[in-house]
């Protein structure tokens, strides 16, 4: 048996933990730079607010219903997520952390999976104030689907165990769920499936796997087997190496100047190089992208990106930056109001498994230098030592006008309770 546990409206739930006033009210959390809606409370969902809606499109709705709008507070969400994952790991030695707010637990050998599901739900609420739903089924794809059912059907009180339901009942449920809800079936695939008469999950389950493999590829074939209780995607215990490391931000306000873009690219390059060093990987490629605001229809929309091969796999800030800036020079166009830029490292390889480079390079000295810088920055302040083109307080800093405090990660920002009240 495999269980999928996920936190309902995770970002909103984290905000509610430290602000009880947000209960029973429509609350939304915005993406970086206060752009789009990325988490909604149930009350906000009922008002018809869709995931990914840009904030400016629902200004009126916000006013008339008093919707509470918050900037995203990732330090808080990451800390709560870590705590939740550690608590969940106590229910099974085999846990796959699938995203910031969900994980698979291998419950094989567990004789009372439904009761375990109830305990999980209770424990996460009591310990962390996180409301969760649990889907239990023989395969990951079915567990995802069971979780979907647990959310939609209040009668199961947040835990749905497919193995306790009859085949007829499961088929009945599947016939009512849109095929696009199946794990791994994207919108494009769902459209194609509809064109050949597959509308519901049940239709997909009963389709001919071998024929579908020819038409849609091996992953859909595996999905069909999984819907028929054959495990094709085992619970993956090792977190796979991140194949890409990205750092990108929208700017607080549009910038035209090349020098400001250099500042931003330097900042993001430092970040990706640091991330890559933290996970002990080296990158083979660096990409840079810049773009203007796609929502401003009156203006010319420009975006471009470039990928450069690094001379050898590396995580050295300076080397990566020299190429990133070369790339920027290449794709930069004057007289454009840029709204966003970013740096991506790809072709990541394990640091310990690198091949020796034919021509001697001073990688050892560089990596020691980076190590010293990282250590100092951890000990004192994030940006004690930085490259000269990286500003401390950038003018293009993103807008986060409605961010809550870092309640759990900063001594300066603890929850303050006035005992007089």
């Amino acid at each position: 048996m495999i269980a999928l546990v996920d936190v309902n409206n995770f970002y909103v739930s984290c905000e509610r933990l430290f602000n009880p006033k947000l209960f029973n009210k429509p609350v939304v959390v915005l993406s970086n730079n206060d752009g789009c809606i990325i988490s909604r409370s149930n009350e906000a969902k009922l008002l018809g607010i869709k995931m990914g809606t840009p904030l400016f499109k629902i200004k009126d709705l916000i006013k008339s219903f008093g919707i509470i709008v918050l900037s995203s507070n990732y330090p808080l969400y990451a800390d709560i997520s870590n705590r939740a994952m550690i608590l969940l790991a106590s229910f099974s030695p085999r846990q796959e952390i699938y995203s910031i707010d969900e994980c698979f637990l291998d419950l094989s050998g567990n004789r009372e999976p439904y009761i375990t599901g109830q305990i999980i739900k209770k424990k996460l609420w009591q310990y962390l104030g996180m409301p969760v739903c649990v889907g239990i089924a023989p395969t990951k794809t079915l567990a995802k689907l069971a979780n979907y059912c647990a959310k939609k059907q209040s009668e199961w009180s947040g835990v749905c165990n497919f193995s306790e339901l009859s085949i007829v009942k499961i088929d009945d449920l599947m016939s009512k769920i849109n095929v696009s809800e199946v794990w791994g079936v994207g919108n494009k695939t769902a459209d194609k499936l509809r064109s050949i008469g597959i509308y519901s999950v049940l239709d997909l389950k009963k389709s001919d796997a071998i024929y579908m493999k020819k038409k849609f590829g091996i992953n859909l074939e595996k999905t069909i087997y999984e819907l028929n209780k054959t495990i094709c995607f085992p619970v993956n215990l090792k977190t796979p190496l991140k194949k890409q490391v990205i750092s990108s931000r929208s700017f607080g306000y549009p910038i035209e100047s090349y020098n400001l873009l250099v500042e931003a690219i330097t900042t993001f390059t430092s970040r990706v190089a640091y991330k890559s060093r933290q996970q002990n990987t080296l990158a083979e490629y660096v990409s840079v992208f810049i773009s203007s605001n796609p929502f401003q229809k009156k203006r010319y929309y420009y975006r471009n990106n470039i990928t450069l091969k690094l001379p050898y796999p590396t995580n050295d800030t300076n080397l990566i930056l020299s190429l990133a800036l070369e790339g920027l020079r290449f794709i930069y166009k004057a007289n454009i109001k840029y709204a966003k830029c970013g740096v991506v490292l790809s072709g990541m390889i394990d640091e310990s498994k690198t091949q020796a480079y034919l021509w001697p390079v001073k990688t050892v000295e560089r990596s020691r230098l980076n190590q010293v810088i990282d250590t100092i920055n951890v000990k004192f302040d994030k940006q004690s030592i930085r490259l000269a083109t990286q500003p401390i307080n950038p003018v293009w800093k993103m807008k986060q006008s409605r961010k809550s405090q870092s309640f759990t990660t900063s001594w300066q920002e603890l929850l303050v309770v006035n005992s007089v009240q």
Partner: protein
Amino acid sequence: MIKNKKQHGGLRSGAGRRLNSGIYGEPTKVIRVPKSKVFDIKKYIIHSQAANVFNITKIKPSLSYQPLNLFEHKVSAGFPSPADDHVEKKLDLNEYLIKQKEATFFVRIKGDSMIGIGIHDNDIVIVDKSQKAITGDIVLASIDGDFTVKLLSNNKSKYRLLAANEKYKPIEINKSMQFEIWGVITGSIRKFK
């Protein structure tokens, strides 16, 4: 055949790694060391090479602590310390103050309403959310969306929140209030310097 053999194999001058081309830049030697110390020794070597002027210790970015040894002595060549066998474990304030670390939060207190039990203005209290509150506990509770820290007591199956200061009256919890006990306060921290 024999002639051929002589031409193949054997030493070739100039082949192989160059002397002192390793990462340390000098000859190295294989030694036996305790497994648990391998990391420290490597770190020492790297650091002593990287920069003799820096004394670097890596600390974790999270809410971390430096555990203190019960007894620590310098390693010296010669006679082994007779105290080595008696080093037991490191004292860890986290272990002393925190039972369930995933459910523990820190909260800063303002005001003097709990001064009678030793919670002063600006103290940081430790809140364990995993514990079920019982009468007599100091709790962090929310009443109609506002947090407060009080002593939990009850009066005829009704909750009451008591301050530890005569200046403040008890709060009777009734059904019209939105009341929730957020967590139990298990300790407080005050720094003097």
